[in-house]
């Protein structure tokens, strides 16, 4: 009695396993066809844009004019090669100095997308790294001597312009920002930059008050900051599966 029960148990178990295998085999063939139909493709290509913030500032700020062209190229699902090319002219006026800086800059590096997109959406919350370099000149339009003692006022002032040419600077930059696809292939971006000056040409008996691309310099540190608003267009070159 007991023996028979054990035997039937084994038979049923064995047949169940067999059935299971055959069921599994069937399942396999179905799922592959289902998967095929919802495969998600991602757009790869060259994204080119301009800095709208600098453009607006050029119209609203008398002491500033500048423009920046930026581009990125997707090399991996979340990794982009990115760069910016810009031109700036900025007049800095303090109580004792009036300086006009003008020049061009180039920045190159990578952006890494930290945002997990839903389906085939193509938005970015990214952090990036850049190496930047600028070639510029400074024109000291006027100066007034600083003196804590004002017994003999006014102090010496000079409106004779002095030009400092062939200045260069190199810096590194950390970027954090977002890029959102507003319409098909059209993106709006916003980013903030934290910069560290690596090397600069120090003009004789003067300093670099402003460096194109690096922005305002500080007496007490080699750190700089910046921001950007960009509108860019993606030229799609090919598509690749999202996996």
């Amino acid at each position, binding site marked *: 009695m007991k023996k028979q029960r054990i035997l039937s148990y084994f038979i049923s178990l064995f047949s169940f396993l067999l059935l299971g295998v055959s069921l599994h085999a069937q399942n396999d063939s179905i799922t592959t066809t289902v998967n095929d139909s919802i495969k998600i493709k991602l757009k790869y290509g060259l994204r080119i844009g301009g800095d709208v913030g600098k453009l607006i500032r050029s119209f609203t700020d008398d002491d500033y004019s500048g423009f920046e062209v930026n581009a990125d190229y997707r090399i991996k699902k979340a990794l982009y090669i990115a760069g910016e090319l810009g031109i700036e002219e900025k007049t800095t006026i303090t109580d004792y100095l009036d300086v006009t800086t003008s020049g061009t800059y180039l920045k190159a590096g990578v952006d890494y997308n930290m945002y997990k997109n839903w389906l085939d959406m193509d938005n970015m919350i990214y952090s990036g790294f850049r190496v930047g370099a600028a070639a510029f000149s400074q024109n000291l339009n006027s100066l007034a001597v600083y003196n804590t003692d004002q017994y*003999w006022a006014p102090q*010496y002032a000079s409106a004779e312009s002095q030009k400092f040419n062939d200045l260069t600077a190199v810096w590194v930059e950390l970027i954090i920002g977002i890029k959102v696809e507003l319409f098909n292939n059209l993106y709006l971006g916003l980013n903030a930059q934290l910069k560290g000056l690596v090397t600069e040409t120090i003009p004789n008996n003067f300093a670099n008050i402003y460096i194109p691309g690096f922005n305002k310099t500080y*007496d007490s540190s080699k750190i700089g900051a910046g921001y950007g608003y960009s509108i860019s267009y993606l030229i799609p070159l090919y598509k690749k599966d999202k996996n």
Partner: protein
Amino acid sequence: MKHYKILALFFGIITIFSMGCEPDDICPESTPTTPSLIIRFYDILNQDSKKNVFNLKVQGVGNDNPLTDYNVVTKDSIVLPLKTDANTTQYSLHKEYSNTDNIIGGNEDFITINYSTEQVYVSRACGYKTIFKNVTLTINNDGDNWIQSKESINDNQSVEDEKAAHFKLFH
């Protein structure tokens, strides 16, 4: 969600940073800028010992006001600001000054300081300072000088900082 936190943190850092750097635009008092001429008074009879001048009144020639802190005081040294927009500054050093019923007592001597100026860059906040080279001091002879003689600390005296005296006056 985690990314938004990173983003918020980063913008926060930038804000704090830019606020923290605001004092950079104000020239700190500790920064040496345009120096003044420092004169010490010594005893003509014992040239190593300092000697006070009593009731001294110092006034720049061409300036309507006596030099602040030197309006009838007793001092063994004086700090004189020089004109940064000229190559000559003249001072009146009035010893034992008194004014009773508009009768002015004491002995007034004039000194003339000649120099050339040079502008030296300090910093973004302070801009330029003026330093003075080839500084010479002459005691204008009025027949009754209380200042007997003068001596510069260095040959070819310059006034580039306020660390030490630049001239000695003996009386």
